[in-house]
């Protein structure tokens, strides 16, 4: 009605957001907004500016320039009031490892001014939720990385937050622990909790995010749902070919004759972006090439990233 292009339900809105540390520009003028109930991701390699952005949203890092509004408030002037309504899972655990699992929740609940009875009731519920009830009275120090992460997630929910910020929630975890964390986050998403996460794992972004931005060198390279990004920037299928190291270059040259939308020559593989992978493989064989291994797969966000930046996500 006011003619604004911004939906009034926007929980977080950034316009030309910049963060500089001295000469270094970590975040270089980004725009985004997200609404209630969304699962929104920042996908990019290390150093892309994801964590700096998250810290600005978390109101612990004043923006250098640009606009940032969170829950309709200014993070610099109203940081305390905003943080009362956020849950934060930082990149590095900030648990008090000398306290017990339950004490960590107790201490954190008090930071939010919650009554003891409220904390006790929520702590029990949250430990159940992250499947740590049996460890409630254990000291945190000896817990595995995966259990600590789950405790951090439980702790971030103690104030029943409207927005949950997750900075690389599964970095450093083994596959089993990652899946356990994803499962919990997926349940939160199903319940309508607004999730904002950063990740450099494309499978994490694909699993959890309704919408994401691809970040590189402090800028947003693309925005959309995982599916639309893949449709826009990649092909339905990818043919991955591995050759003997001494044949790698020659083969790559010959492959130029295969009709493909795009070809990426990586250090160890050649990727052909095509509509029909099996048909392309037949053409490759028809040219007399003998790849040691071949794989036909669907396009992923990794391919989108490669296309947009010329580099891989995880290195």
């Amino acid at each position, binding site marked *: 009605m006011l003619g604004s292009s911004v939906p009034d339900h926007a929980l977080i809105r950034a316009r030309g957001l910049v963060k500089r*540390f001295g000469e270094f520009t970590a975040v270089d003028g980004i725009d985004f907004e997200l609404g209630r*109930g969304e699962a929104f991701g920042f996908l990019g390699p290390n150093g892309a500016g994801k964590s700096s952005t998250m*810290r600005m949203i*978390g109101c*612990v*890092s*004043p923006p250098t320039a640009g606009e940032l509004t969170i829950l309709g408030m200014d993070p610099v002037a109203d*940081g*305390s*009031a905003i*943080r*009362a*309504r*956020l849950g*934060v899972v*930082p990149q*590095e*655990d*900030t*648990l*008090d*490892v*000398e*306290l017990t699992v339950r*004490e960590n929740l*107790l*201490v*954190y609940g*008090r*930071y*939010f*001014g*919650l*009554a003891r*009875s*409220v904390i006790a009731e*929520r702590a029990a*519920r*949250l430990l*159940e*939720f992250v499947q740590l009830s049996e460890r409630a009275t254990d000291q945190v120090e000896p817990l595995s990385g995966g259990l600590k992460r789950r405790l951090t997630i439980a702790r971030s*929910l103690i*104030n*029943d937050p*409207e927005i949950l910020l997750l900075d690389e929630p599964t970095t450093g975890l083994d596959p089993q622990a990652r899946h356990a964390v994803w499962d919990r986050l997926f*349940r*939160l998403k*199903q*319940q*309508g*909790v607004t999730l904002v996460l950063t990740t450099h794992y494309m499978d994490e972004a694909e699993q959890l995010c309704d919408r994401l931005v691809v970040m590189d060198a402090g800028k947003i390279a693309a925005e959309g749902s995982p599916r639309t990004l893949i449709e826009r920037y990649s092909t339905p299928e990818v043919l991955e070919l591995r050759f003997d190291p001494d044949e790698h270059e020659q083969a790559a040259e010959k492959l130029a004759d295969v009709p493909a939308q795009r070809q990426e020559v990586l250090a160890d593989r050649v990727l052909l972006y095509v509509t029909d992978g099996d048909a392309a493989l037949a053409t490759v064989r028809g040219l007399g090439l003998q790849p040691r291994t071949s794989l036909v797969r669907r396009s992923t966000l990794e391919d989108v990233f490669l296309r947009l930046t010329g580099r891989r996500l995880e290195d």
Partner: protein
Amino acid sequence: MSADAAAPGGNGRGAGGPGAGGLAGPGPGWSMALREFRFWLTDYRRTWRGSIYSGVLNPVLFLGALGLGLGSLVNHHGSARLGGVSYLVFLAPGLLAATAMQTAMGESTFPVFGSVKWNKTYQAAVASPLRPRDVFHGHLLFVTFRLTMNCTLFLAVAAILGGIRSGWALLALPVAVLTGLAFATPLEAWAVTRSRETSFSLIFRFGMIPLFLFSGIFYPVGQLPAWLQPVAYATPLWHGVALCRDLTLGSAQPGSALLHVAYLAAVAVAGLAAGQRSYRRRLYV
């Protein structure tokens, strides 16, 4: 959805909003600092027994070995230069102030550094409604609590051993706590900016030990070489020692007492201002 119902989040928020869960808005500054203070108290529950033992043992050892043991030699040669009192009575107030300094240095260096570098509990706190200054003030409240505890134990031991001569000694408690705070506020302000822990051993070696030896605890500052005396007068510890001694001997004069208190308070307040700034710069990056 049994397990799911156990989860927090979207469910139930409609019924009453955040307030229904007892979520208070960010309160006034002191109430936020109290939240951090309570964190430190929870943390302290693991180690309080040990700290009581050392809080009692420390004065027993020092007052016993030096006040009574070495004191028997000193007293033998007359105590005119000590103001005509026994060495134990002379020493006790000095060590009281030193206890405050040592407690402050212990609580304001590694615990601060650890909170920002190792455990990162400071960072956890500022992700909640707490602001850097609340974290700082809350930690100082805890240091004040520890100072009060250690100085009370010291005074009790000193009184039992016969080192206290006047009822004014009760006022030496707040003075000793203030002496400790004159060390705690600037030290915390500085400790939060450190990136390596080696800085602290330097402070202990070249700060605490010389102060301990040359601030009039073991002998009157008048015994120092003339050029060193003004240095002693400039340190907060000497002011704490001098005023504590005036009080436990019952010889305090309002004018000089006020001067000592004003000096200690000025240092503590300067440290407070510095810390509000340095905590903010460190925790809001």
